[in-house]
């Protein structure tokens, strides 16, 4: 994968291997904090900071970390970045920090981030690793914004707090409640499979789940991957 161009590395994370819409990773924040566009943006920014920072750092220190302890080391690096984001957010944007609540610290266990560190940053030089992380973060942000946009528009009739829907619009409250999260993501995923299956009739209807380069599907994962 090192022979790919920077553009390819970046775009892969955005679309082809979009962390949420294709790889179905990082579902918890995708569903939990997308009841408004504002929350979605804040979460996307916080996650982007952590993923770019930790990928860059992992790529820099990869040669000095023995492979036996690399998982623990990566988690330590990620947890540090998350703690930093959590503190900065609490200091700079207290309302935002309150709205996202425990989901900021939970960025630590977003498998997407550990996945990029292990599958890409630990095997690539700094620049491609940053590109890969930025691409993944962009893909994650797109998914979050899509979810947040749909849910806020239908559930509150607003976009970023501004009234968009006509006045006599009765908000679909269910959309900003938990079931609405599942419904919206379900609809988006069905749209995605329609897109992938469109015109490729020769393809089997059921596409095997796409895993990023270097990541084994969970059913083949062995216990040794634990930190």
């Amino acid at each position, binding site marked *: *994968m090192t022979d790919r161009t920077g553009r390819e590395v970046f775009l892969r994370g955005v679309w082809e291997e979009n962390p949420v819409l294709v790889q179905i990773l990082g579902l918890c924040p995708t569903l939990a904090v997308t009841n408004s566009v504002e929350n979605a943006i804040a979460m996307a920014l916080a996650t982007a900071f952590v993923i770019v920072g930790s990928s860059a750092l992992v790529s820099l220190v*990869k*040669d*000095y*970390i*023995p*492979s*036996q*302890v*690399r998982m*623990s*080391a990566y988690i*330590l*690096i990620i*947890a*540090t970045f998350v*703690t*930093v984001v959590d*503190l*900065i957010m*609490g*200091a*700079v944007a*207290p309302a935002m920090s309150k709205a996202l609540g425990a989901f900021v610290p939970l960025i630590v266990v977003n498998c997407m981030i550990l996945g990029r560190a*292990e*599958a890409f940053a*630990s*095997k690539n030089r700094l620049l491609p690793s940053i590109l890969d992380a930025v691409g993944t973060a962009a893909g994650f942000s797109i998914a979050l914004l899509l979810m947040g946009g749909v849910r806020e528009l239908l*559930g*509150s009739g607003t976009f970023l707090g501004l009234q968009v829907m006509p006045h006599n619009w009765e*908000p679909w*409250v269910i959309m*900003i*409640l938990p079931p609405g999260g599942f419904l919206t993501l379900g609809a988006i995923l069905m749209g995605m499979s329609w897109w992938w299956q469109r015109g490729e009739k020769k393809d089997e209807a059921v596409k095997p789940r796409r895993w990023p*380069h*270097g*990541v*084994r599907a969970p059913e*083949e994962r*062995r216990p*040794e*991957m634990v930190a």
Partner: protein
Amino acid sequence: MSARGRKGPPGAIGSQPSSLLLVGTLGVLSVVAGIAIVLVHGWAQPRIEAHQAAELRQAIEEVLGEPQRYETRWVVDGKLLDSLPAGVDSSAARPVYAGFAADGHMVGYAVPGQKPGYQDVVKLIFGYDPSTRKVLGMKVLESKETPGLGAKITSDSAFIHGFDGALAPIDGVKHPAQDPHQVDMITGATISSTTVITIINRSLEAVGPALGGAHGGEGP
């Protein structure tokens, strides 16, 4: 490309590094991480605390009608104390905030309280004047009630201002309130409204006698 786990970084292939190296690497990383966190914490913590204090002050000002200053008091075992006595667990004591007007006379107490609502715990703070037994104001601090229904307890100004000047103990009613003990509940949010009223009544049962004034603990 499914070499995950086996193909480690260069330098680790083929040789089994000593455990000292493993522990050392993690140790160095932990120290660096610790220093980074402590530095950011040192910068951020005062700001976070300032935000929290500002939030509390604003809530107290809202429910006590802009007092000039306030002092924290504690109710422990039915007694009002100026400071938390040593050895008393802060969970066994309830804080109340005494608000003072510019001329130094006490306006009333801001009393925080909480209870499970329709969905999750509702936290609120209300102002209370023990001499007249009147509630001065109410503000919901935290709730996850249903948007559009129960969540109105934080936004419905008619409901919120219904508490201004209401006599404790409060009784929630569905028709226009007639007596000073009565407060109109929100249509479609009966449980959330009752939760707010119950929090106020129970808090007053718990701390009311300690705050002085003419009081009993009788329920609504």
